[in-house]
């Protein structure tokens, strides 16, 4: 899994590529928490467009970041993965608990 980040208009944008499974989720948690601490950003957009696989550990890592950010007075928004990684994402009904956007532009609008 690869991660990159950028601050856009005070918001931390994290772009994820590859597989968000048990191993990927561990890295994702550690890196995102560190970037939030370093940049001071409290509003985070996680772009999953280039994620090729996601399972319950990946979902747990996303919801865990959301919980942390909400506790800090911040927020987390997500850009939906492309098919086929969308299978679980849609089945889990994540849109009910997380703001989900079709593109990064819309998430930042």
């Amino acid at each position, binding site marked *: 899994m690869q991660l990159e980040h950028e601050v856009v208009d005070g918001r931390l944008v994290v772009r994820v590529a590859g597989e968000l499974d048990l191993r990927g989720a561990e890295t994702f948690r550690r890196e995102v928490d560190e970037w939030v601490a370093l940049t001071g950003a409290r509003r985070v957009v996680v772009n999953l467009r280039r994620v090729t696989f996601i399972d319950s550990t990946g*979902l*747990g890592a996303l919801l865990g970041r959301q919980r942390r950010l909400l506790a800090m007075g911040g927020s987390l928004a997500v850009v939906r993965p492309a098919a*086929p990684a969308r299978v679980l994402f849609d089945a889990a009904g994540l849109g009910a608990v997380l703001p989900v956007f079709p593109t990064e532009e819309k998430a930042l609008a």
Partner: protein
Amino acid sequence: MAENDLLIEVPARAENVALLRVSVAAFAGGLPFTLPEIEELKVAVSEAATNCVLHAYEPASPGRIELRAHHRDGRLLVEVRDRGRGIADVAQARQAAYTTSSDPEHLGLGFSFMEQFTDELEVASAPGEGTTVRLHKRPRG
């Protein structure tokens, strides 16, 4: 379609979860599954293998994951087995959002997704005797 079978054994470590699900996905290519069905299968195998890594063994005594798959008469069976601590109450463990983990980011949805993304899920386990998960899936077409 000819029968086929697969046997893999790996250490129960996070980096091997991908190896197992991708192996099953390739193996399942021998049956007329659609791409979304293959993705469902990958999620189910990933959840089963993740449970072995997170729950089966004490950190001080890591063990292995045994994966068997076969297809016969147009249906696929995947068996994921550990020789770890086992589950005392399987019915409770299979409930959505139930987890023994102290980590709030472990959602307890592994068995729910295995159930949702296969035709049938069987779980055989007893304390001290490890856990065997059987995932059955047949192409819908």
